[in-house]
């Protein structure tokens, strides 16, 4: 054993002295193993990413050569194309409603599950089921559920004596429909929050109980701060996902009625793959990317106030 460690120490000492292009066998193997990823990264990610930035400065309809037009695409988005503003508005409203609601609902169910219920594994599986399915099939099922005349939702409402709207063809309810649909598949969040809750040390609750704290106080003063890093991470991931929503609106409403569900990705797809405005679509993609980055940055900035990391030392 000792000889092997000596060998390793000697190797790493030599590593520091060798010029960078001299690789030992282990290093050669390492680069060889990572090589496929590097090729894929350059060819399918980095290259296209840079190309996209260049493309966004051109007018290109695929069938004629691209023409450099500077920032005209970006200018057009701001001043000449009201649908861009509409798309960002729709996507933002959807994201800022759906993501916090999903988190709240997820935490709520996780709290109930954490109260040492029997049959936990089974209940958890049931709640997770909707998260396993996605895409076209789910959109089709919800198309039927949200149908104004014979959909399941309006049937349920009529049992309560309420008359439900035509969910997907009413400009006032179409976004609410998508939010509702997103709440169905909250299962992944539940599992994650449950794991977070199980990681909160019991001593904290015991100590608080001794001090006479009730359930409500303990929830806000212990539970929420202790799982806030998980909430934060899920919030960021959830926002990034929600801002890129595509399959649902594409299949269920095609952006309608009257562009009330024109999500950015839908508009981007239309510009790129229906109108073949590759330059304009690229510019749109970059604006969406920057928008997502800015929102994420904003969330991260604000997290200093509400996310608690154990072991973090805070100055006064």
């Amino acid at each position, binding site marked *: 054993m000792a000889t092997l460690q000596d060998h390793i120490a000697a190797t790493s000492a030599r590593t520091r002295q060798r010029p960078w292009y001299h690789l030992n066998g282990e290093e050669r193997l390492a680069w060889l193993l990572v090589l*496929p990823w590097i090729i894929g990264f350059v060819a399918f990610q980095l290259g296209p990413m840079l190309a996209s930035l260049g493309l966004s400065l051109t007018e290109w309809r695929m069938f004629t050569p691209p023409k450099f037009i500077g920032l005209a695409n970006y200018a057009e988005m701001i001043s000449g194309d009201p649908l861009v503003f509409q798309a960002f508005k729709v996507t933002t409203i959807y994201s800022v409603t759906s993501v916090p609601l999903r988190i709240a609902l997820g935490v709520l169910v996780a709290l109930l599950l954490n109260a040492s219920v029997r049959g936990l594994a089974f209940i958890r599986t049931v709640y997770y089921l909707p998260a396993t399915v996605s895409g076209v099939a789910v959109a089709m099922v919800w198309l039927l559920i949200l149908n104004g005349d014979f959909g399941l939702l309006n049937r349920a409402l009529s049992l309560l004596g309420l008359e439900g709207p035509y969910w997907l063809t009413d400009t006032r309810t179409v976004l609410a429909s998508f939010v509702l649909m997103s709440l169905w598949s909250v299962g992944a969040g539940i599992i994650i929050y449950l794991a977070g809750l199980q990681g909160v040390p019991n001593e904290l609750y015991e100590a608080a109980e001794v001090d006479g704290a009730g359930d409500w106080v303990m929830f806000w003063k212990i539970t929420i701060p202790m799982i806030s890093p998980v909430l934060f991470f899920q919030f960021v991931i959830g926002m990034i996902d929600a801002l890129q929503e595509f399959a649902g609106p594409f299949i269920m409403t095609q952006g309608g009625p009257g562009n009330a569900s024109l999500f950015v990705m839908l508009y981007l797809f239309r510009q790129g793959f229906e109108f073949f405005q590759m330059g304009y679509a690229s510019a749109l993609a970059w604006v969406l990317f920057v928008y997502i980055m800015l929102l994420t940055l904003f969330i991260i900035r604000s997290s200093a106030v509400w996310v608690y990391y154990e072991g973090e030392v805070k100055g006064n």
Partner: protein
Amino acid sequence: MVVRSISGSQSRYRAFKMTFIYIVLAVGMVIVILPFLWMVSTSLKTPADIFKIPTVWIPDPIVWANYPNAMTILPFGRFILNTAKITGLAVVGATLSGSLAAFAFARLRWRGRNFMFVLVLSTLMLPFQVIMIPQFILFRELEWLDTYLPLVVPAFFGGSAFNIFLLRQYFMTISPELDDAAIIDGCSRFGVYWRIILPLSKAALMTVVIFIVQNRWQSFLVPLIYLFDQKKYTLALGLRLFQDQYTTEWELMMAAATVSMIPVLLVFYYGQRYFIQGVVFTGVKG
């Protein structure tokens, strides 16, 4: 520990609380399951039953024929086969290339390792919408449009950074002494990967496989961009075509949707242990 005597009112409060929790959870479970039941129920109805009020839950008659009808109006058998082919290739490519890279990150000592690993992680932030259009142009130049290559080839070049990350984290938990012992016994470094790390990482590999299957089986946007010929359609594109052409034939649509969900639900059911581990692993530790 101070042993507290639980007074009558406290235990009544606790019983009340637990009853309340079970009721809420049960109601929630019903709401979660209803869309599935509604789908299956509708898939077995006559058109008249679909519109009937009050709601028909157990159709009478049960129209089993909806299933063969739905599957033959469009060539769904072929769509399923196509999707299985793409999914299978993606699974092989992504687990192979991903686990090789993960092995290099977890087990080998090389200069540039940390930098490369940060680079891998940073691609998790790369937005698909930005690379979607240049990728399309690239694959058009390569004359890969209307083939499965754009859907499959990237998987063989590392696949998603997420898989590499998950596998690397798992490999790190395996004791390095096993490697040393194997190397002393004359095993090559590649042999360590193949004979020791991979067999010991079945759980992590299963998680990755399940994630890829779930993702690829239902993927919509990428096939939508690259596949034009109906014969090459995936299940998701087939469903979309169906929905477009037979808008009002809900019973057939629901039959097709049910069939398409069954493999995903089965994979989840049999792999749920790994699956839930994976979700927790990536969601909590970030």
